[in-house]
């Protein structure tokens, strides 16, 4: 069986054969003989040529969250990814020409109004979460096209708060 995974932008392919708790795995042209035991529903104990390791795993949104000896990995399964929506992604800015908050919170201040021209890095909105204020700034010189919230509103990640029209 073959598996394809992504970590950040890099793709990895693994071939895997198993018999009971014994696995033969091919990765990057190297072969590994592995004895893997399920220690709990979130933990696997491995022996790889004598090397002992315990991996802790959880799964969410088509991704494996893995921790081995304090190192964290977020491993995407590309084929599953497609079936998921994009909620929870950090869509701050960029191609979409709007700003959003990277974490849910309450809008305490909106410093601009529709039609305003804004500098790059000018503060547009202040969102308070966990008692800290976070300034949401304009990533580009732009004109404010639309404002979708008012002060006091709760706002979730990914929701467009202020929509922008880029200036050349």
């Amino acid at each position: 069986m073959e598996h394809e995974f992504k970590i950040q932008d890099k793709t990895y392919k693994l071939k895997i054969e198993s018999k009971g708790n014994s696995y033969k795995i091919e990765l990057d042209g190297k072969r590994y003989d592995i004895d893997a035991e399920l220690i709990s529903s979130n933990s696997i104990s491995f022996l790889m040529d004598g090397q002992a390791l315990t991996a802790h795993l959880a799964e969410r949104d088509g991704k494996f969250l893995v921790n081995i000896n304090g190192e964290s990995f977020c491993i995407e399964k590309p084929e599953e990814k497609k079936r998921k929506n994009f909620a929870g992604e950090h869509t701050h800015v960029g191609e979409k020409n709007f700003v959003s908050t990277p974490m849910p919170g309450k809008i305490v201040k909106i410093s601009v109004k529709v039609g305003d021209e804004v500098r790059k890095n000018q503060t547009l909105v202040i969102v308070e979460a966990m008692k800290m204020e976070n300034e949401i700034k304009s990533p580009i010189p732009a004109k404010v096209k639309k404002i979708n919230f008012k002060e006091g509103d709760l706002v979730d990640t990914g929701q467009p708060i202020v929509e922008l029209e880029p200036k050349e």
Partner: protein
Amino acid sequence: MFNKILIANRGEIAVRVIKACKELGIPTVAIFSTVDRNSLHVQMADEAVLVGPPAPLESYLNIDSIISIAKKLKADAIHPGYGFLAENPAFTERCEKEGIVFIGSDSKSLALVGDKIQSRETMQRAGIPIIPGMKGSSKDINEFKKEAKQIGYPVILKASGGGGGKGMRKVRSEDELESSISAGMREARSAFGDDSVYLEKYIEHPRHIEFQVLADKFGNAVHLFERECSIQRRHQKIVEETPSVALDDSLRKKMGETAVKAIMAANYSNAGTVEFLLDEDKNFYFLEVNARIQVEHPITELVVGVDLVKAQIRLAAGEKMFLKQDQLKQRGHAIECRIYAEDPENNFLPCSGKILFMKEPTGPGIRHDCGIYTGFEVSVYYDPILSKLVVWAEDRPTAARRMLTALSDLTVLGIKTTTGFLKDVVSHSDFLEGKTTTDFIPRNFTDWKEKEDNKKYLNQALIAAAIMSQNKFVSKGQAVEQESYSPWQALGKWEIGMRN
């Protein structure tokens, strides 16, 4: 001793206080907001009562509700923890009026030390060195501008009403002054219910050294030595240790005596911390009195061997000072790392969400003061501190090494934490050499990223994911059935059996 203590807090500090009460045999009342029904402090207390909606002003800052719960359940004392109502003289005064013992100092001394400007004046009169700064707060931007110019940039903006970095901002030039003041005032109001702010001289490359003091209600006080809390980001301490490598015995003695003098000058009782800045020439300046149990109190407990929370309760109950200064000794070295739900790769923005899996580090010299568990939902409403990892060892290098392995053993899946960042902090050469000044983080860790390429276990992580993906385990039907004995799942199967 008290008949029942209400804990007006949540998270790890509420858990810590409940444990102390249990050992003292005092029943406890937890309060919780609607999003905190499943929090650990609710599970551990003897009684638990809903205090209000999630917003702090309507729950953990809601004085009327808290007092009425205490009276209804006949709690004769309230422990405020840190944050929330811990340093609010109005709350303390209300407790005094209602005949409930506030576990802390009295409202008069709290009002004094809680107002940074008043307390600076008091300390100055008592002969304690202070940092040059504004004599009082103001609402007038021009006055701030004038004062700032007089003190000389860079200056630092502080909230009169509280600590913990809330409302605090470094201001480099007059350009930044106005927006900093507005933001600082809003944060101050939200955090402390008081938007007064003031300015002080910003000292370059200082160390943050604080002394733990315990005082009874009869004018007796001892100090329990220093904590160095220089490693901060956004004026929030993240790594603390004791002893400080910057103090020798004579400076330690002098600062300790000054700390006791400061506490006496304020007529302060119970546990309090006197914060100093120590400059590069070993001059020290009074910063403020933290009129509460500190987040970082465990390192003192481990090195001095005194339970500070129990001491608070005993002193509040009117016991005379039971410790003698000359019998207090530091032994070994302790370090604390604060584990926050924050994304260290994204400007330490707080994160919320569900803890999908957690495993706590254990072992000799490891203490984990923890407010979360597998399945717990971290909400957006409160301070993002999840837990405090504290280690003790015979000496500083051993403690640093122990902290590194303990951080590696701490597993939290499902939410970003500062753990990986902290591993790099405690293994950084400047940390290991004791070069810890308050600019340690900006100096060494600006734009920190986890070193993806250097990870040792990349292949193993991929292999783990592959084995999980392999439906082998599942199709064998072993996983859930053999490894899980949850009655829920058993009932699930039983249900199915019934339908057949």
